[in-house]
């Protein structure tokens, strides 16, 4: 039987779709998902709000692959 303990966190490449500066949350299109986005992903507070421009690349650390609320945008780049 497979080891059924909780799987490790994963890192995913995404595209920033919407930035909510007031709550430091973001909607992110994970690369590979053509039709739907992850909604309201927490964003690392050390990322400057001005850098969160729609269309930029982001790195999402998913502590639980099936719960976007348990994830964080940890990097943004052009």
């Amino acid at each position, binding site marked *: *039987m*497979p*080891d*059924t*303990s*909780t*799987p490790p966190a994963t890192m*995913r490449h995404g595209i920033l*779709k919407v930035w909510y500066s007031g709550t430091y949350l973001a909607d992110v299109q*994970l690369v*590979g*998902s*053509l*039709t*739907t*986005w*992850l909604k309201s992903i927490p964003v690392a507070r050390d990322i400057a709000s001005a850098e969160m421009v729609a269309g930029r690349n982001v790195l999402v650390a998913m*502590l*639980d*692959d*099936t*719960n*976007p*609320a*348990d994830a964080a945008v940890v990097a943004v780049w052009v």
Partner: protein
Amino acid sequence: MRGTHGTPTTTRQDLQQRVPPGRIPPPPPPPTQQRSPKPLHFGRSGHPVRTLAAALTTAQQSATNEPRVDVTAENSIGALRRLDFEFLDATAQTIAKHDVCVPGDGSLVRVRSDGAGTIYYQRVATPASGPWGTWVAFTPPGKGNVVACAAIGARVIVIYTDAAGTGVKWRESTDYGVNFTAEAAAFTAAAAVVDLSVAYKAAGGDCAVAYVTAATLAICKRNTGVWAAPAVSASTFSSLNGVAVCFGADYDIALTGVEATTLRRTLWTQIYGDGVDAPLNTYGTLAIQQQAESDSNVSYKAPFAAYFDAFRINYVEADAFTGGATRTYRIALHPLNTWVIGANMFTAPIPVGYLGAEGLALAADANAVGYVYETAPDYVYRAPQTQLRTTLTDDVVGLIIRERDASTTGYIDLDNSGGAYAGPPSPVTIGNRLDVRWGYYTSSGYLTSKMADMWIAATEYRRSGGKSVLRLHVEGGWELLRRNRQRMQIVHTADSYYSILLRMMSRAGLRLSGAGVSTRADTVTPKFTIPAQMSAFEAAQQALSFLADRIRMTSIAGCVMLQPMPGDATTYTFGVAHPLRSVQLRTEQPRAAEAYAFGTGAFGEAIDYNAAAVAGAPRDYMRDATSTTGATAAATATAHLRRRALDADAGLIIVPPNCGQELYDMVEFSDGYISGSAIKRRVKGIDWRYERRPVAVYEQTLLLGAI
């Protein structure tokens, strides 16, 4: 299609076969006819056990009885009829609204709009040969640009609109579409009709027209020749662009458009009750089957629905982003599922190599014979829908199947010394289902018991030492899950773990039922998102890691969820009546002695103190954002610890096959050299082995686990 009368669902029961000695077992009985698919069963009546006939039980407990392994190949993918479409025509025509239906004489009727106010009609008496180039003007110019048709027996009805788009007209044939009545008014819509579809209910002519205006869904029924007033759905939409209706047991509707408020592009299913799966003349609940964000540059349109072996939908996904395409996709329901099964229950979309903007209409000959047609104005393909079953039993020279907690793999070797399997011949084809039954010669002849479904994953010709063998590599339901990924992300916000798994399985073509499911699986509703990149297998394992429940694959592309309990009754005993050839009894530490669940501002733990007192038992950490209290986090930890306890190995026994053995059954055996009392263990893996040469082998290895 739009308007095909529902033809029966195929049902196959796990029947034990009785055949005279030395005779090839006949195929199972022909498909029975069932008007309505069975509703989803949520039984909780204890763990299911595959029961055996008394004569088979007696035979398998005798060391001298002749083994019997029956193997049959069938043209089914998952539980759905395999449709291998063949080309008939691709004559260029204007691409606009269109439809197709199949009258009872096997002819094919197509209708289409030219997009400029004229409806064209084509009836091909012999679809195998055409001709396909002839269309006749069905109406004088000056009509609307939407059209639909349906057929049942000798009746064919064509529905279209007037130039204003609000007046819905009909013409009907009672001679298979050769002659039609004059145009008549059916009803008047409150706003211009954007799309419409028609479906017959009965050979007497009762039918219904479903239609959408810019933002409204409505349906209008004709009973005993009288058109009723349209029934408008109370659902609100931002906009609608397509609709399809078929009659299964009620009027089953698929529609496409834009969701109100969120503006998400969506393919929904809806039902208008005929008193079977929904109350008479009542709309059901909209269920999302495909959805795209408002800014995704993706839209859905041109739905067509039909019910023959199962509910099937064709629709167009138009991707306007760079590199995207406008393409038809096929989705379907498991044959035993009903239209009202809920959201996200259709199989993962399968792309079709047709890029026309108005999609592919769908229709089939009645009674599960003949053909399924997919057509557009410039496209006619068809696929045989007949069930093909081939018995391979007499040629099986070896068979090894390995059933595990989350996999079923193995191979079947077929004697190809005469070249009978060159090709290989249909339906011995990759993707097709295999029916494998284990048995013996008994006092009632050959009796067998069917194991979980498997499908052909690969074929391999092996020639060595003058022997020629075709090896069929096979796999089971878990492997279907491994290959299943969605085109969209699935978000569950208020579904129980059971419901999440039910939908996950359904999208992979499997039908989950419950038998002794844990209360936790039924009641806890986690925030659970399945990203597009995640396989159904990964998602299922993630969901199951929060539960003590297990899922066992079964027949008819089914699976059963159950919670193994320490007090479960023994289902079979070895070593007394049933020979026990070999025993390796192992005792080891549980895989985890402590489980910690870290919730949202909450912590819960579960500890096996006895195991924790022994060095080496590890601790599992779980992230469980769903839990917001210590109690719920502790429940998560408890379920996980129980799950991990079941992972421990307890050795194995080797026996002549118990033909009804399944994973998670509780078995016991006696061996005075090991224990003075019966030894009870749970089955966590099964190796089935049947070989005719070089040495005849017929045995079963049961991998044992904790109870």
